[in-house]
């Protein structure tokens, strides 16, 4: 499974690089900025209180063998 995940990671990095390359291209957003008021609500944040999520992650990591991929992976809703 580790190798499978590693391949997935490599592919994801390649996809991210491709996405960044394409960033200059103009893509029409299917959710308009003025339609993002709900996504901008604090209750929709992946990491509403960083001081609390850091502590909670610490508690889990100290007692479990697994690690990583627990942080707030993005959450940028483009609401600015």
């Amino acid at each position, binding site marked *: 499974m580790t190798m499978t995940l590693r391949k997935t990671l490599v592919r994801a990095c390649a996809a991210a690089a491709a996405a960044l390359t394409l960033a200059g291209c103009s893509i029409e957003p299917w959710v308009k900025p003025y339609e993002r008021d709900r*996504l901008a609500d604090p209750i929709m944040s992946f990491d509403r209180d960083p001081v609390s999520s850091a502590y909670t992650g610490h508690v889990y990591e100290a007692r479990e063998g697994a690690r990583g991929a627990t942080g707030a992976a993005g959450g940028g809703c483009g609401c600015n």
Partner: protein
Amino acid sequence: MKRHFLIVLLSLAAARVVHAGVLPEDRADVLLHSYDGGGVTIQGPSLLVRKQFAQKFSVSANHYVDRVSSASIDVVTTASPYEEERTQHSVGLDYLHDRWMMNIGFTNSEENDYSADTFSFGISQDIFGDLTTVSLGYSLGNDTVGRRGDTTFSEETERQHYRLGVSQILTKNLMLGLSFETITDEGFLNNPYRQIRYLDTTTPQGYSYEREVYPRTRSSDAGSIRMRYYMPYRAALHAEYRQYGDTWDISADTFEIGYTHPIALGWTFEGNFRSYSQTKADFYSDLFPRSQYQNFMGRDKELSTFASQTIRLGASYDIVRSGWKFVERGTLNVYLDHMMFEYEDFRDLRVTGVAPGTEPFYSFDANVLQFFVSFWF
């Protein structure tokens, strides 16, 4: 001695690269935390302050303390109860340029038998009409491991984290987050106090102890997917799944679901359920057949086969809603987590008078309390 917090530090340092295009909010948090379970109590404060300046930068600083009093199953069966304190300081700087965000950070952690320094770097960008945020992160940690009562013992550990995150707006009500992280460790990866047990017919109880020996390298991969959905009324439903695997042959699955519901008068309530399960490391055994049975031997219960469930209840109250002097808003928050651990090949050696290897499996519950106040300014 605990080194697992470093993993969290590294993960969070890498995870800081979020919200490209928008600097983090100015805010201050004061948190008091308490963990009580399995004979261990850990308490202390955490203070986090973040402030923007020059319209393009944001600095953050964190002071965190763990005061540990431990009489855990490992301690009462092979050592003596102890108390210790760990102090951690972190600083970070974010730089915003157009839709790019860059972050650097440094963290130092000190306790009487462990010292750790962590550097982190991250970059993220909003793309596709700001519907997508892509983030990349790297962290490097260097630890110095000591052992109380043994001034000649000193070992080093190096950790590197590589992280990729993507957040995606799918609809007006639905957000998706993907995260992948590879971690490599090299050096002394043992807990220097814990021991394995092996069959020894020359002792009254039928077994003896000797020091653990871990491999000096470890590499792990983890991938997670999370979703957050805005309900037809003002509330949020979220779910997350994570898969994990490493070169020690541990594999793990984590599933989480939760619900956040604000109501009138400034209250927000939250409920959460988390389920975790893992398989054991290939060099783990509760009872080895003899001393020096194999090159690598471990009996950390964190490396055994087990499952845990956590139930969370939380509440927040807006104490400042329409501003007061320089404070824009403020909240009071309390979270209570009840955790239940059940081990499938780690036995409770407090039970005596039975044949070695027939003791009941160990289990314990823990309560984790967080109380914190937050101000935005």
